[in-house]
């Protein structure tokens, strides 16, 4: 709180720099569009759920299966005669849900472990480093698949978890947990390094001299100074999550009852050899632009928020 004015300064400067980066602004606009599509998709989904009806994108019409693009269906229809465009739109919702849900798991784990490791050092640090080194040494996709299988069978077989699957697809949940429990390593490393640096700073020493508790120093005093790292990390990780989910769903481990992009591509490959490109094209393009926009914007954001990079740029300018 005492850092308030300082923080505002950081964000204001960052925003000013971002605004001058035209490329980043285009990407921001694209992300805004995706967010609008996402909100629209959520509204359709929950609207149907609350009214207790089948959402339109899930209604099949077997008379118009596998049709090429037309005015009524700009991206054609799929194996069940559903409109590919609305499938793609719902895929956006799945992608965002995965990004957010996974981040909800990744950020607390990565932040908390990184903070305690960096702040306390010594044995705690050794333990945390050991833990993330072990996790990092196993090939990611395999570990995610293993965790996802376990989570799914636990969720599907226990009464207690059944209630959750009313709101979240069990496959989606499984993939998120899988990616969540493997994906915190990068963030943890970053935070740990920052805490190492900050714990020797004067404001921390001063706080300690005044008798402020370790918890308060870690989370009230140091945390606001590393918060921007989480945001950068989140925006850079998001595209990776979307891609991983697509790979997993393509392999049949991921989302099942909902049209995720991976699942759409999996369906589309069945008829690709017949020349039905449109189903594949829709989902792939949607994924491509989201990932591209996020990557570029994430980079720009990092440049803007990282004081070191900023001074370097100022010097060259």
């Amino acid at each position, binding site marked *: 709180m005492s850092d308030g004015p300082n923080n505002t300064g950081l964000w204001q400067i960052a925003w000013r720099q971002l605004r001058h980066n035209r490329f980043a602004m285009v990407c921001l606009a694209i992300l805004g569009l995706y967010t609008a599509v996402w909100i629209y998709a959520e509204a359709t989904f929950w609207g149907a759920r609350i009214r*207790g009806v*089948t959402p339109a994108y*899930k*209604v*099949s019409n*077997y008379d118009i*299966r596998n049709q090429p693009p037309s005015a009524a269906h700009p991206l054609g229809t799929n*194996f*069940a005669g559903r409109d590919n465009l609305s499938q793609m739109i719902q895929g956006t919702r799945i992608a965002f849900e995965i990004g957010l849900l996974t981040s909800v798991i990744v950020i607390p784990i990565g932040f908390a472990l990184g903070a305690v490791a960096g702040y306390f050092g010594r044995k705690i640090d050794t333990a945390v480093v050991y833990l993330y080194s072990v996790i990092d040494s196993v090939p990611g996709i395999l570990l995610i698949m293993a965790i996802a299988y376990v989570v799914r069978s636990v969720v*599907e077989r226990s009464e207690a978890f059944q209630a959750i*699957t*009313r709101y979240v697809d*069990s496959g989606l949940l499984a993939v998120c947990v899988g990616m969540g429990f493997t994906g915190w390593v990068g963030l943890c490393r970053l935070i740990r390094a920052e805490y190492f640096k900050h714990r020797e700073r004067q404001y921390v020493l001063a706080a300690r001299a005044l008798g402020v508790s370790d918890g308060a120093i870690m989370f009230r005093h140091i945390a606001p100074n590393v918060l921007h790292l989480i945001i950068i990390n989140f925006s850079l990780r998001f595209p990776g999550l979307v891609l991983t989910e697509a790979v997993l769903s393509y*392999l*049949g*481990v991921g989302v*099942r*009852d909902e049209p995720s992009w991976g*699942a759409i591509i*999996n*369906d589309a*490959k*069945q*008829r690709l*050899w*017949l020349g039905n490109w449109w189903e594949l094209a829709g989902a792939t393009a949607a994924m491509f632009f989201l990932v591209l926009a996020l990557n570029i914007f994430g980079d720009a954001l990092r440049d803007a928020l990282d004081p070191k990079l900023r001074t370097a740029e100022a010097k060259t300018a």
Partner: protein
Amino acid sequence: MLFVLFPGFGRAESVLYGVGGDFKGFDPVDAGDVESADQVGRVYEGLLEYAYLDRPYHVIPRLAEALPEVSADGLTYTFKIKKGIRFPDDPCFPGGKGREVTAQDFVYSFLRTLNPRLQSQGDWIFVNHVRGAQEWVDRVSSSKDPVNYDAPFPGFVATDRYTLQVNLAKPYPQLLWVLTMQYAFVVPREAVEFYGKDFRNHPVGTGPFRLKAWRRNYRIEYERNPFFSGQTFPANTDPEFQADVGKPLPLVDRIIEYDIREYYTTWQMFLGGQLYSAGINKDYFEKVISPQLELSGDLARRGIRLQKSPLLNTYYLGFNMLDPVVGGMSEPRKKLRQAFASALNVKKYCEVLTNNRSTPATSPIPPGVAGHEPKPYPHAYDLERAKRLLAEAGYPGGKDAKGKQLRLTMIMPGAGSTDARQAADFYAEQLRAIGVELEVQMLTGAEYLRREHEGETQIFWAGWVIDYPDAQNVLQLFYGPNKCPGVNATNYQNPEFDKLYEHVVSMADSPERTALYAKMADIVVEDCPWALMTYPLAYGLFQPWFQNYKQHAFPYANWKYFKVLPH
């Protein structure tokens, strides 16, 4: 030219390349699925086998000298075993030399199938029929001692080295059929004891082939078994099968199969001539098969043959009758199951998901088997009826008295398969139309089989591939005492049905028996432990150089007849 002048010199090896190999292993007692049965049928044999080319199906002796002598009361079957049949050389035998097969080997092998500790899916072929079988099973289950296979057993008696007597508790006319099955194949005791748990990876059988190399999930290779005892291609009247009459079997030297999971790969390999046969995936169907259901021009010009044939299979969705929601024999529960069945538009399913390569099932007994009656299925698709029945079952609009939506769970195999996911999507949508939420869980093959076997289900997708052409084989799935972990995976129990079943199992084939079969099928259809889905039609493509193939409903021992021309 050399080949013409010296036909024996430099003769090219003939190799059959195919797709397969995703199976459990070579232990005959454990070969309860089609793929395992297929692999086991290459290396092991039994007393009897099907006459390959003859229809209607009938059995002929294989390791037996002749068909058995049956006593007047129909309770004692006496088999003479051929002399000189040898197990192949293998390290499990003293000195590595194989030995002659005797009657005692059959006693041992049959008892293994009965042994409850091995949890064979094939114990039903003997357990309620053979004298002393149930007592033996109970004794083994309750004791902790090792199983004594040498103690006298009243059901299977080796009266001398080459004579085997099977004594039944009551007449069992299906005995000849079941003795063709892999569960009754002969295995050497030395191999079982030598290899222990690894026996399933080390087949030591009398069959036409022996295992040469096996890399799980990749490739399996068989070669001609030099110890295979003489058998020749049977004389017949079909002009298509004259070329090899009288030639010694097997006709190919090696079989090599690749375990291919992705259909596209199979298809490309088949087109490249690397595989003798390929099925047709639904998404390839339109390109390959004309609207008149014939082979498309390109493939036909290459001489590729299309073989269409009905299979004696029934696909269905089974309800666990012990489940508190869908199970039970009370009127509302029955109506709930009937509502479920009526909500499924099976005709649409056939069209959308199988390109009409299957037809809606109307009875648990498939057509072509006595007892199947050509009458409509009473729970065929009828949305209004489904909604009405659901309301009568206590779930108007899919909601119970408290207004909570009915939610059901179904399991099916095919984790990771696009086709399975699309089928699951179809089922869920059909049920949604009557207000029921169906969650379909797609499991790996092994996990699915385990849960079905142990009755850990609410609703399960399943198909029954008939084991022999007698409706009793299907009806046993509804016999109360066969409930889980037996073959009655739905745990269905109806005293009226059970009484009829106990009566018909000992009847010989007759119009009366057929009428009773039909009546029993009607009882099952009314109680609805199965929501009937489809009868499949097989569409197989075969290379022109693949010869001597005749579609067979029980094809597991047919590999020795196939021929590959030089190509």
